Structure formats: C-alpha cells, structure tokens
C-alpha cells in the first residue's frame, strides 16, 4: 500500500509550548521540537503525520494548519513581529 503523507504543518509563529507534541498519538509521534531553534518551536514530520488533527485545537496561537483546508500559508499576527526586531538587530551587527 502506498504511504500517504499527512497534511498538517506548524507555521513560524509557534511559541514552543509543546501542547501539540503530546497530543500526537504515541504510536505516531510525528511532532518534534526543532533542534537549535532559540524560540523552541515545533514541527511536524509530514511522512509520519496521520492527519488525526488532535494537535490543532490545542495550539494557543493557531499556528497549526491543515494544508487541505488552508493551503500553505505563512504565519500572521503579532508573533511574526519578531522579524522586525531581528532585522533591526542584524542591521546593527
């Protein structure tokens, strides 16, 4: 049987609370914390995701999307604002 990849993904506005990680069924365990990311954000391994969708409602910033429903979207809202501070800091470096 052909393997079907999942459709859920986490955008850049993740705050790293990890609520989604433990919502992912144990046998699936498709959510992981990105190593070396200072902001402690999480990501989903699409090849392992089974599209159960348990993770999305638990996110406090609505950064988990279903590509089938929303397509691939960029993060929006206040949690994208850190880019401006980072750009300011880079410009001064």
């Amino acid at each position, binding site marked *: 049987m052909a393997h079907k990849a999942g459709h859920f993904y986490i955008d850049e506005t993740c705050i790293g609370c990890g609520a989604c990680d433990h919502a992912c069924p144990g046998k699936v365990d498709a959510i992981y914390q990105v190593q070396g990311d200072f902001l402690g954000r999480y990501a989903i391994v699409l090849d392992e995701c089974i599209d159960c969708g348990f993770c999305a409602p638990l996110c406090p910033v609505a950064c988990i999307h279903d590509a089938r429903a929303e397509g691939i979207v960029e993060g929006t809202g206040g949690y994208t604002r850190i880019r*401006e501070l980072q750009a300011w*800091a880079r410009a*001064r470096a």
Partner: protein
Amino acid sequence: MSTASRVETLRPLPPTGMNDEQVARYESQFKEHTNRWAEILQRNADRMRKGEYSLHWMKTDQAAWGRRAKPSSRGLTYTDINNVPGYGDIPERVTFLSFAPRGAVREPYADEMPVVDDYTLVDRGESWADNVVTLYEEAKARQWNATRDIPWSELERLPEDLEKATCQLCTFLTEVEFVAGDFPAKWLYKIPQDFLEVKSFIVTQMMDEARHQEVFRKRAIAGGGLLHASPGFEWALKAINDAPTHTMGTFLLNLLGEGLVLSMFRSGEMIAKTHVDKEIFRRCLQDEARHVSYGVLELKNYLDNAPDRPAALEEMHRFADVGEQVILTSFTEAALVEPMAILLGGGLDKIDQGMEGQAHLWKMSVEEYLQRCERAGFDRRDRCTIPLDSPWGQG
C-alpha cells in the same frame, strides 16, 4: 549532665495559649461531626474485635474494573488513562467535593464523607483548558535544574554598564516571577479533585516559577548583585493577586503578564550578552510558553462555556481595561525599560539606539498580546488600553 536531665531540658514548653482559639475551633468542628467520623471508627473497631473482614472494596459492580490502560510509546500519559472508559469524563460541574478520586467507587460513601468547603471552582469553565493535559505532560518532560543545567562556571565578566543592566533585569524578573507561584497557589486549593489535570498542571507552573525566581536571583548575585525593586512592578503583581476570579487572574497573569515576559525571553538572543544568559532565557522561554498557552485556552474555554457569552465578554473587557493599565505601569518603569535599552543597544553610550530596538519590542509585545486575545475569542484590538506604539515613538 545526666541523660535524664538532658531529656528534661528537651521537653516541650508548656502551652502558651497562643493558638487556643484556633485549636478550640478545630476541636469543636470535629466534635460537631462526631456522629459521622466516630461512627466509622466504631464500626471499624467492632469489626476488628470480632475478627471479621469486610472485603467490600473487592466488589467491582460499580467500578470501571478490568478496563486496562495501555501505555503509548511515550509511556503512560493522562491521555492514555483518560481513554479508558470510566476515567476520562471531565464533569461540566463537580458535585463531589471530597478527595475521592474521579473514577473510584465513591457514591455509596458520599453521605459519610466530609465536604471540602474550599472547593468553590466547581464549574469546568472556571479552570479547565483543552490543552491542560498535554501541557502537563510537556511540563514534566521539560523540567530542568537551575543549579546544574546552567554553565555557571562559564559566566563571563561584562563591562560594568552591561553587567548592571543584566543584574537589574534579573532583579525585575526575580521580583515578578513568583507571582505566578503565589497566584495559582491561592486558587489551587479551590479547584476540586475531579479537575486533577488542572491542579497537576498548576503545580508544574509553580515549580517552573520557583526555578525562574531561583535562576534570575542566582544570575544577579553571580554577576554583581541584585539592584532596584520598583513600585510599578509591585502594583502589577498586586493587580494579579487580587483578581476577583480565577479566570480573570489567569488572564492577567498567564495571558498578559507572562505573555509580555515571554516576548522578552523570545528576544533573549538580542538581550543576552553572554552564552550563559542566552541559555537561561532559552530555558525559561519554554516554561513560560506553557503558562501562556494554558492562559489562552483557559480564557477561551471560559468564554465558550459562559451561559451568557456577551455578558461574560463585557465583564472581561471591564476587568482588562483596568488590568492592562496596571500591568503597563510595570512595563514603563525605568528600572525595566532602561536596562533593556542598554542591553539591546550594547552599552550605556548606545542607550538611544537601544530605545529603537525597545520600540520594536514594545510593538511586538502588544501585537503578540492581541493575537493571544483573539485566539481566546476575546478581541481587544479596538479596546486595548496599551498603546500599540511605544510612547517614545521610534521603531
């Protein structure tokens, strides 16, 4: 001195009468209910004297006995055991106000049990959040030790202006962090046992905050010392502690206050001047994110389940109108804004440039707050009393 006379000196002092009134009240409280607990004692003693066994506790007709929980690959989580029929039904309203565990056979004994009068947050809408179970698991997985996990021996010496700014920031954080221990503690014992997942998560929050208070205190004292406390911080803390309801206080503490601190920690790469400080911010950031996460979905749950949503919303807005202003008092204190600007700018001589960065941070913090409110179904955009742009304009 003989052994006997030594023992004599160790005898407790005679009663001083200091707590007479309290002890008398305690005695009378239990004497009032003698017919209940003393009857249980009598019944047990009679059975023991007769050499009989009860074995009533082996009866399983009213129990969810035999439906075994299956561990997942992570171990045995609350989600795993809540999937077992009979254990995972979180009541809308708790009627069992005792310590008897949810899912145990307890109804037959209800009349004989004392009522815990302090359990007043009986509605699920007053403390539950849909992510509280997974946040609890995450909290346990991410515990760390402020003594051992920070490379204290590698702490570099900074120029005096940067060291003072760092120590002042740590003084602020030491001053404010444990309100997130005190406030939940004030409400923890009011949450009934049926909401054990909420109670458990709140305990992890308190542990996290103890660690934050510890790590910032240690950082300050390892670098130069604690500097100035501030009245503005204190008013913000008072506003949180004195919040009239659990949800309102959780909004002010977790969603707004800790949210603003989270914004600072997220900027930690730019604020921290040593790799040790970066490590502290990185670790605290993850803890803080969980608290913020609970606060957002707790408010959402409260509003979604409010019998009269428009009235609940209006009441929350009324509370937030005041709360935002008091929290703002804290975040405009020179003892916070100035050291942050010095750290962002890179020195006292670059404080003006640092204020530009601080203006970006201000905007980012407020926008992040508004995003959290929106997620909770509490749109503050048109009503927010915190200006979107910093009072000094740049950025």
